[in-house]
């Protein structure tokens, strides 16, 4: 009896420790970034583009990367919504429930979800070679939207799937077509979930570096056209960290702090969105 009790307690302690280690990993990451990033933070970081000799420790900021990342992530998110939303509506409203095609599409998204982002970058690069595109904002948007497509679609699918069958039937009974039901009933009902899905995908898109290294390139100026290269925050961090100058490396920490803050804001918005937009939802 006692031995069993001891075993119980030992393993309980191990389990609590494991959970603690993992959660303290999170705390340690955020604390490190804040402690190292804050001293190097200043207004110039977020209001100026890199001046001459920026990577040698001279003046400037990473406005180019902040704006670039925003353009890129917003563009990719919009493109991805344009594909995800119709696909998810098709799977849940038009297609026969539980048909082979539906399971196949879901399965393909699940599998795509696990494909490493560097592979999306390499694939985006082959598409660009094919169309003769250079590294550009457009190339980056294509690669990143492919990367976030499965994330967004699966997250949307989960909520649209939860829309009660009765609600659809009530709408059909009133004479609405499937399209009208989809646009006016289903989207309204699933809106909080859709917003959440979009935000999650956006967060993933803005933080990814490996998919844009081939496709979006890097530049010190703010892009003014879809066909110009564009700087991104993760790559700005990467390049600044790669220089041998401590001043520039410190700026990399500050840039990492900015990126982490963006991600924090996005994930807090996810929480708020999933609570706040539930007004129109019929339970």
């Amino acid at each position, binding site marked *: 009896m006692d031995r*069993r*009790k001891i*075993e*119980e307690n030992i393993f309980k302690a*191990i*389990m609590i420790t*494991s*959970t603690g280690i*993992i959660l303290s*990993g*999170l705390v*340690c*990451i955020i604390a*490190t970034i804040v402690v190292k990033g804050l001293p190097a933070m200043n207004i110039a970081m977020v209001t100026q583009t890199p001046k001459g000799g920026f990577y040698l420790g001279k003046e400037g900021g990473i406005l180019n990367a902040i704006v670039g990342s925003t353009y890129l992530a917003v563009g990719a998110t919009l493109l991805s919504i344009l594909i995800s939303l*119709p*696909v998810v*509506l*098709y*799977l849940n409203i*038009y297609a026969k429930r539980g048909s082979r095609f539906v399971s196949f*599409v879901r399965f*393909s998204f*699940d*599998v795509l*979800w*696990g*494909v*490493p*982002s*560097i*592979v999306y*970058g*390499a*694939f985006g*690069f*082959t598409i660009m*070679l*094919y169309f003769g595109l250079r590294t550009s904002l457009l190339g980056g948007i294509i690669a990143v939207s492919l990367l976030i*497509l499965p994330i967004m679609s699966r997250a949307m699918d989960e909520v649209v799937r939860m829309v009660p069958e009765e609600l659809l039937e009530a709408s059909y009974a009133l004479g609405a*077509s*499937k*399209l*009208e039901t*989809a646009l006016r009933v289903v989207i309204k009902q699933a809106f909080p979930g859709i917003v959440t899905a979009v935000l*999650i995908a956006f967060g993933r898109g*803005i*933080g990814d*570096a*490996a998919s844009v*290294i*081939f496709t979006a390139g890097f530049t010190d100026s703010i892009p003014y056209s879809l066909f110009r290269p564009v700087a991104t925050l993760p790559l700005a*961090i*990467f390049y600044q960290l790669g220089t041998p100058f401590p001043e520039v490396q410190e700026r990399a*920490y500050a840039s*990492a702090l900015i*990126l*982490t803050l963006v991600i*924090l804001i996005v*994930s807090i918005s996810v*929480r708020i969105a999933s609570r706040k937009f539930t007004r129109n939802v019929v339970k």
Partner: protein
Amino acid sequence: MERKRVLKDRLASKFMLLLSVVASSIIFAMIIGLYLRSRTILETKPLSELLFSTSWHPLQGQFGFSPFIMGTLWVTGVAVVIAFPLSIMAAMFLSEYAHKLVGELSKPLIDLLAGIPSVVYGVWGVLVIVPFVRDYVAPHFPESAGSSGYCILSGGIVLAVMICPIIIHVSTEIFRSVPLEIREASLSLGATKWQTTKFVVLRKGLPGVIAALVLGLSRAFGETMAVLLVVGNVAKIPSSVLQPAYPLTALIANNYGEMLSVPLYDSALLLASLILLLVVLFFNIVAQLVLIRIEKRIR
């Protein structure tokens, strides 16, 4: 009017179907696209030489992936060895033992951990893990004293933290899906809670736990930025975890600049991406099939 509505509905339906077909064929497009580009190198060199040769001299036309493949395997192995026991224990705690409030509180935190960009993990690795390994781990091993800290162990630790959330996420779902009745049956026979967890919940959920492990493994396998920053990037087959390595993903990301100026180089790097894609696809398909079977059994 009526006809217009019906027509709109039909058109929308066809359009959505088309998009669904296109979206689900992306995966095939990726395989074909990367294959077409890597064919150039596959035609000039036998696959076995590419995979098993250790000589990597792009300027002389020698592309042996072996050091990079070994680098990837080492780093992934270390990450999984660290992350798997931790995550399974944490998942058991969160699903079986933890107070409901603790579970509710830790879920967003674990989601947040999953959402941190990999380059931030990399920066953290450079600032915390690398000095830790250099100052506290390496000195205990005479053959690797003086190590810079940029090594497989550092890469593995960083990756381990990265893949914990996904293993925890999938395995808590699995543990929760184990019916309450069989737990109660075990408890009523006099088993302790740990015995029930170990012999009933874990055993029942084992296929799902393995699927979770495989998903974490494939995530580690394809991770790029975080590893690239901490693993040292030396193209030599490593012989201990305190040596630097050069994983495939780091190879691809690091050599983008030069690849178009050296013949066959771009083809070689795209072949590396194709290899990564195929390995990860294999892992993912297996894991997803297992999870689908479990889901069906529950319903």
